[in-house]
């Protein structure tokens, strides 16, 4: 553990990106699997997720939005690990572009939930928060020449 703390001091953006993308991957994969496994997601006592995940906005051209989310988080995980291993010069740029796209999608979906569906899904809000943190961290990572 003693060796970990200086490493975290210098590599905290990568650590934060990895943590957020891992949690996001679990979150989005849960929704993706639910989409494919359940014939229809049942309504449960405390969440409004079924309204959101059963809505017409939950798929884009037949692809569930949750699956796109899973792929986004998977990309971030693989990109950060690649950067840690190989120091690709262009990866930080790519991270910013991809996470900015995900951030815009998140804004759109939160807007849909608040104003159109009038139902908030916890898993979706969590994903939007994580993609926002990932975008902000990517920008920091890109503009600060970190090791």
């Amino acid at each position, binding site marked *: 553990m003693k060796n970990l703390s200086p490493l975290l001091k210098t590599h905290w953006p990568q650590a934060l990106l990895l943590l957020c993308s891992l949690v996001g991957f679990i979150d989005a994969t849960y929704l993706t699997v639910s989409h494919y496994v*359940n014939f229809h997601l*049942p*309504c449960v006592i405390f969440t409004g997720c079924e309204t959101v995940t059963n809505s017409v906005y939950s798929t884009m051209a037949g692809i569930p939005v949750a699956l796109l989310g899973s792929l986004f988080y998977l990309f971030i995980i693989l990109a950060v690990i690649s950067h840690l291993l*190989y120091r690709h010069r262009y990866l930080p740029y790519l991270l910013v572009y991809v996470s900015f796209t995900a951030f815009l999608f998140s804004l759109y979906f939160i807007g849909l939930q608040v104003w159109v569906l009038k139902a908030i899904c916890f898993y979706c809000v969590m994903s939007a928060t994580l993609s926002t943190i990932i975008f902000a961290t990517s920008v920091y990572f890109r503009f600060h020449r970190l090791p």
Partner: protein
Amino acid sequence: MNKQAATVWTIVIILLTLIVVGIVALVTAPKQPTNGILSLPVQADDWTTGGVNASSTVSLVEYSDFQCPACAFYDPLVRRALSDIPELVLTYRYFPLTQTHKNADLSARAVEAAGQQGRFWEMGELLFTNQEKWANDDKAEAIFSGYAQQLGLDLTKFSEDLNSQATKDKIAKDYQSGLDSGVTGTPSFYLNGKFITNPKSYEEFVTLIKDALATSPAPAL
């Protein structure tokens, strides 16, 4: 690729695979906290249909919420099963998820009020078919009155029954029996008193019902 990188990638791939496998196992596991037995058998005042002229019957109790999209999705399947399987006896019990569905309670009361004038199943079907039109509407009560009118109900009596204590008590009783049975979401089905995981297709639904009829038929009505 050097040895260190190969090790890192192997760990990452194994970890991600384990996550996906774990999630699939979690989602597909049957969700029933208690023993899966219906706490309250079908009562005389329950809303029940089907099984007329059948030599033996099979009972399907559904806990449902008129504002739940999954319940609206299953409703036509249940109706189709009723017409395809003459032995099927369906009992509808209210399980309004008032925490997330703002018109869940009102819609249950509207159907109960229609039931007081003999049009329970017709009103239920209307509400499920038109769910998106009233689900988030602040004036859902006016929409329900419109449906009552469409069904030719006495509107004064409809309004009285909609707000009566007896109606509220009936819904509360159903909700409580659902909680006692371990219901956490809707729709929840009990076949001959035993919880079943929501079928993934109409064919699976029919197979489950026919199996129950073959193995443990209930007496004719």
